[in-house]
């Protein structure tokens, strides 16, 4: 087990190195020049050249990459070209909103999707099942920003129940925090929910066809006990897997959601950085994303044991 975890962590490092090199070369080739962005509209070509030199952007690729990796090994992600703030600080400022948003979405999606998926499986072939599947397909078909506008239009402007935009830290109180996250979570979570519901239904159907479920039914256990006690537990592996894969999906969606709802999260930070060519931020954030993604999937793999003791590493 320990060996397995160590091996996986080693693989994680390799993955992150691949990502780092990939992102760095991509940015190096990108035809955007932070110096031009800094100089603004009323500048001359000479001004931009001077600023480039000051920023060290005229150095060859390998020198720049070497410098960056060197600092990285010391835990330094560099400083933003524009704001001159350390990248770690900029990311730190924005961790809470994004983590809040994704966790809340996750909780909300799983709490709804898993029971609904189980229900659909239990009533496979009925109208309930078709309704659930129909809704899930529909949820796949609406771009997240359209959904977000509809939610704002209805709940914030028409009904005035919830705030339009922004984020309040948890330290401001639970309700201010939660109220700013409800609409974004729904907008972000709908696709994800549909995804999990479908997988849950499929996994449950699969398990329900197994012999031991028939045995449990024959023993006279209540259908509910069979469903939640035996079947759901055994359907856990694929469901958990999907939740893990979905994290990347969630981060993609979070970028759009954060833009619409003006939430100062990491997704927004990244898009802004790309549009302005703030290289150190882009590199830092993507590295962070890939690290988190790989770690979550490691956790997912490890959690398989909870559901299926037969799995050994």
């Amino acid at each position: 087990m320990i060996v397995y975890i160590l091996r996986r962590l080693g693989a994680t490092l390799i993955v992150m190195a691949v990502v780092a090199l990939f992102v760095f070369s991509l940015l190096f080739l990108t035809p955007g020049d932070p110096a031009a962005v800094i100089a603004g509209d009323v500048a001359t070509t000479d001004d931009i050249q001077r600023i480039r030199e000051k920023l060290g952007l005229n150095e060859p690729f390998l020198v720049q990459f070497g410098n960056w990796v060197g600092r990285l090994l010391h835990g330094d992600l560099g400083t933003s070209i524009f704001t001159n703030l350390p990248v770690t600080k900029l990311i730190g400022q924005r961790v809470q909103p994004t983590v809040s948003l994704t966790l809340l979405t996750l909780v909300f999606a799983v709490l709804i999707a898993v029971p609904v998926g189980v229900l659909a499986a239990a009533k496979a072939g009925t109208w309930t099942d078709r309704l659930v599947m129909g809704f899930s397909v529909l949820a796949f078909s609406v771009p997240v920003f359209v959904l977000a506008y509809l939610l704002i239009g209805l709940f914030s402007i028409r009904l005035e129940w919830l705030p339009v935009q922004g984020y309040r830290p948890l330290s401001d109180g639970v309700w201010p925090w939660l109220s700013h996250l409800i609409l974004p979570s729904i907008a972000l979570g709908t696709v994800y929910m549909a995804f999990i519901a479908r997988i849950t239904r499929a996994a449950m159907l699969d398990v329900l066809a197994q012999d031991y479920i028939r045995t449990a039914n024959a023993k006279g256990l209540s259908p509910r006990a069979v469903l939640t006690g035996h079947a759901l537990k055994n359907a856990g592996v694929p469901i958990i897997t999907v939740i893990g894969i979905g994290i990347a999906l969630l981060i993609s969606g979070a970028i759009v959601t954060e833009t619409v709802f003006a939430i100062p999260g990491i997704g927004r930070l990244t898009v802004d950085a790309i549009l302005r060519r703030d290289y150190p931020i882009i590199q830092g954030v993507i590295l962070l994303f890939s690290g988190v993604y790989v770690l979550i999937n490691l956790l997912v793999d490890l959690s398989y044991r909870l559901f299926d003791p037969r799995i050994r590493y």
Partner: protein
Amino acid sequence: MTTAVLTESKPASPTWQWFGDAFRRHPTAIAGGIVLAVMVLIALLAPWLGTVDPQALSPIQRLKPPSSEHWFGTDMLGRDVYSRVIYGSRISLAVGISVATFSIAVGLTIGLVTGFTRWLDAIVMRVMDGLMSIPSVLLAIALMALTKASVGNVILAITLAEVPRVVRLVRGLVLSLREQPYVEAAIAAGTNLPLILLRHILPNTVAPLLVQGTYICASAMILEAILSFIGAGTPPNIPSWGNIMAEARSLFQIAGYLILFPGLFLSLTVLAVNMLGDGMRDALDPRLARRM
């Protein structure tokens, strides 16, 4: 991961006879197929559907609500939204279909090769893990920034994000198929690798990849819209459902029709493609049906 679930598909390849029968048993798939066919027809026949030049602008005529002259109204530069939506179907469908085709072709090739080459497998899968760990929207934005905005680049960017998923799927299939007795027998008999791949492995990937392809197609069309929203999508003078909506997004409370019409077309098409995918999955592989 999920792909492991798909690994036990039957070795038999589907026949067209079977295909037709199954479709008759799946009305949603037929409905999906019909809607999709209509959309393709609309895209092909765009110039003959009462449209005007979708790029022609007339700022004096801006933001006119739907009327007999402009069926879907006009946008902020006075362009005819009906024509833009109809022509937009070309881009959106092209993006969806090309991404599905390319990512499956590339993913299949890589997956087949890595599934059979142990030393390559480790390297390729790490690279794929890396690609997968970058959120697809970010990857696409970065790629769009790398070159100028064009439909080709949108397709490239989304394809690149989808390829690792296909590779994983195919690799999973290959890894389990190679344990099958008839494949082991072929290997023992000294059949060369390309032949094994071609004869025993490839046919078994058709069904899951067809199904996967429809899902990729659907999600690519949505992703195209999202990229336009972020400003990294199809170039703005070429209409696509995504960028018509994205350009008009700030006006959703004032000129909702600007979002409504392209949105309806997009959702309808994505819905149809998804329904087609679900139906195909049921028809091609009843065992798979319960899985996805």
